[in-house]
């Protein structure tokens, strides 16, 4: 039997795989000596939240309180906490724990630790289930807390904690951050629009690759992309063949990799950050004859998440958000499913998530 939890909490939970979110009273642990407790101000809605509330991946346990793009103000710190104090602006992303001793953890890559504990729906060290940021307060080990730079608006900064790190990490790891390089971004949604902003801030030339022309104006005029290719138009693809050093592919639907591989230069890298459930067709010719590579990436370690947020602070990078009230969340999920959002919903938790009497 799990530990008895003492601190009241209130949030929105899915109770079954219909995914409908409704008010939920629960409890969190007391602030431990290494913990940071904070009042949640905002929480971003990630596509993963949608998959998890519906149990699309077969790993959800109910009740499920989603949310892993969480920002707020510190209300209490444990006795051994050194990096944060009451009043600090902080955030928590997709992880709240890891083993701390494996190769991945030692290299600051807690995200690849086989015992990594996700912010919601996972078993914590005390055998309780973690609850995410669609709730009024959060408590988290100091090692997984991110400091949010003062100059960033908290609501628009929240999505950086998942979307931001998911695109930042591979741009750095695969050396796609060198000024003058040409980076393609496939899919202009939560991940894609942030990828454009980070890639531009790194000094690269950015081409957005999308299935329809409708986002061309936005991509170029608002997000700062240099070019736009409609992937269903053979002429446009042809014009872009062999021009890109790397492509960040955010698309999670089934799609063809061949035109994307074609757009890479020799030795180019196709990085998958979206995760289609079914395998995709892979022609090995571009890999063998042009030494192109396909690789994957998943969020990032805590150190590089902090680095990413600091870079966002320096370059004023935030997500483009639609701020919603807590009672709009189910409608938001339906719209998210249809990709009807420019480009991330963020729940105004502090102002609109009220416990029901």
């Amino acid at each position, binding site marked *: 039997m799990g530990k008895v939890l003492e601190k009241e909490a209130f949030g929105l939970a899915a109770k079954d795989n219909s995914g409908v979110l409704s008010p939920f009273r629960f409890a969190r642990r007391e602030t431990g000596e290494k913990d940071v407790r904070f009042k949640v101000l905002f929480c971003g809605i990630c596509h993963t939240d949608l998959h998890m509330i519906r149990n699309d991946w077969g790993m959800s346990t109910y009740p499920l309180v989603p949310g892993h793009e969480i920002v707020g103000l510190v209300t209490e710190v444990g006795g051994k906490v050194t990096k944060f104090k009451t009043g600090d602006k902080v955030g928590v992303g997709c992880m709240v724990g890891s083993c701390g001793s494996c190769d991945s953890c030692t290299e600051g*890559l807690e995200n690849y630790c086989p015992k990594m504990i996700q912010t919601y729906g996972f078993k914590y060290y005390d055998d309780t289930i973690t609850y995410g940021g669609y709730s009024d307060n959060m408590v988290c080990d100091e090692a997984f807390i991110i400091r949010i730079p003062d100059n960033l608006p908290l609501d628009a900064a929240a999505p950086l904690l998942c979307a931001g790190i998911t695109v930042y990490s591979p741009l750095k790891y695969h050396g796609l951050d060198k000024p003058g390089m040409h980076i393609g971004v496939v899919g202009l949604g939560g991940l894609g629009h942030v990828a454009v902003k980070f890639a531009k801030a790194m000094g690269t030339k950015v081409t957005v690759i999308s299935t329809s022309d409708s986002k061309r104006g936005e991509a170029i005029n608002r997000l700062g992309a240099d070019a736009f290719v409609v992937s269903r138009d053979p002429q446009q693809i042809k014009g872009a063949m062999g021009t890109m050093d790397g492509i960040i592919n955010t698309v999670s639907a089934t799609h063809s990799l061949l035109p994307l591989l074609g757009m890479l230069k020799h030795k180019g890298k196709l990085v*998958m950050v979206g995760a289609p459930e079914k395998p995709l067709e892979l022609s090995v010719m571009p890999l063998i004859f042009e030494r192109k590579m396909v690789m994957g990436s998943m969020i990032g370690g805590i150190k590089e998440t902090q680095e990413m947020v600091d870079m966002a602070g320096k370059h004023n990078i935030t997500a483009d958000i639609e701020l919603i009230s807590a009672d709009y969340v189910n409608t938001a999920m339906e719209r998210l499913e249809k990709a009807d959002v420019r480009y991330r919903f963020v729940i105004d938790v502090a102002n609109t998530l009220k416990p029901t009497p």
Partner: protein
Amino acid sequence: MAKSPETEHPNKAFGWAAKDKSGLLSPFHFSRRNNGENDVTVKILYCGVCHTDLHTIKNDWGFSYYPVVPGHEIVGIATQVGKNVTKFKEGDRVGVGVITGSCQSCESCDQDLENYCPQMSFTYNAIGSDGTKNYGGYSDTIVVDQRFVLRFPEGLPSDSGAPLLCAGITVYSPMKYYGMTEPGKHLGVAGLGGLGHVAVKIGKAFGLKVTVISSSPNKEDEAINRLGADSFLVSTDPQKMKAAIGTMDYIIDTVSAVHALFPLLGLLKVNGKLVTLGLPEKPLELPIFPLVLGRKMVGGSDIGGMKETQEMLDFCAKHNITADIELIKMDEINTAMDRLAKSDVRYRFVIDVANSLSRM
């Protein structure tokens, strides 16, 4: 009037060619150019039989121009060198591999990566820089630009060294390029044929722990006791595959038929790299979740440039690495091709050209 293969060049040559997509090889008279100022003329001693030869004679890839004289694992003696040739002299033991031409002035050529030059031409079944068709090493002589001739190191036997000119470089190049050479790391070699068995030997020479991944349990004894692999994983045994999940830093995948990548990707550790070398007829299925969850990579590779091919030969000579071969006579080639189609060879046929190719 079009010239015939026999008359298009001044010097008679003789070999065996496939005349149609039955792939049946038979004696063939043709001709070779005069030795130009940059050329080396090679009297061919041995030629390895590569799986690509089989694909080409049967027109599996749809671009065979018959008659095809295959053979791109050629070892012989230089009998003539042009006046600009500095690296070789008559009597030298030399090798010719998969390519015999490139533009020699593009970015790839400047980086010694002639294999990626857009104007690269293959040793056989391709049009050379003089506009005539290239004929390969199942023949008595070949004339090659010095840039594409390799020095065969002292101590590297001509017969069992010949397959290194394709199989050797095909596995050596990606191991270097993708950084699969850190001593102590764990390399999986999928498929134990011409490429695979050389990959095991080269992997061991780099100080790696090597596991062979194969669907044929009867190759285990060979793999461990003869080739020096550290362990053997039967890919059709679910228990064993499960136990090996997340244990390998790198995988060299030599399987040329369509095959599942999912189980191989599962064997890789986080940040693991899988390099695929075979050319299946249909696309493979690539599961994305394993790549994302483990930051894994799938890449490919194709032979190598001339500089690294020479480096590979020198490396193999130093570490006494040769192919395991079955020496055959020229007139046994059709039987050998039938056996190769069934993977019935440990692990490369090599034609004893000089001793068995008699002009008819």
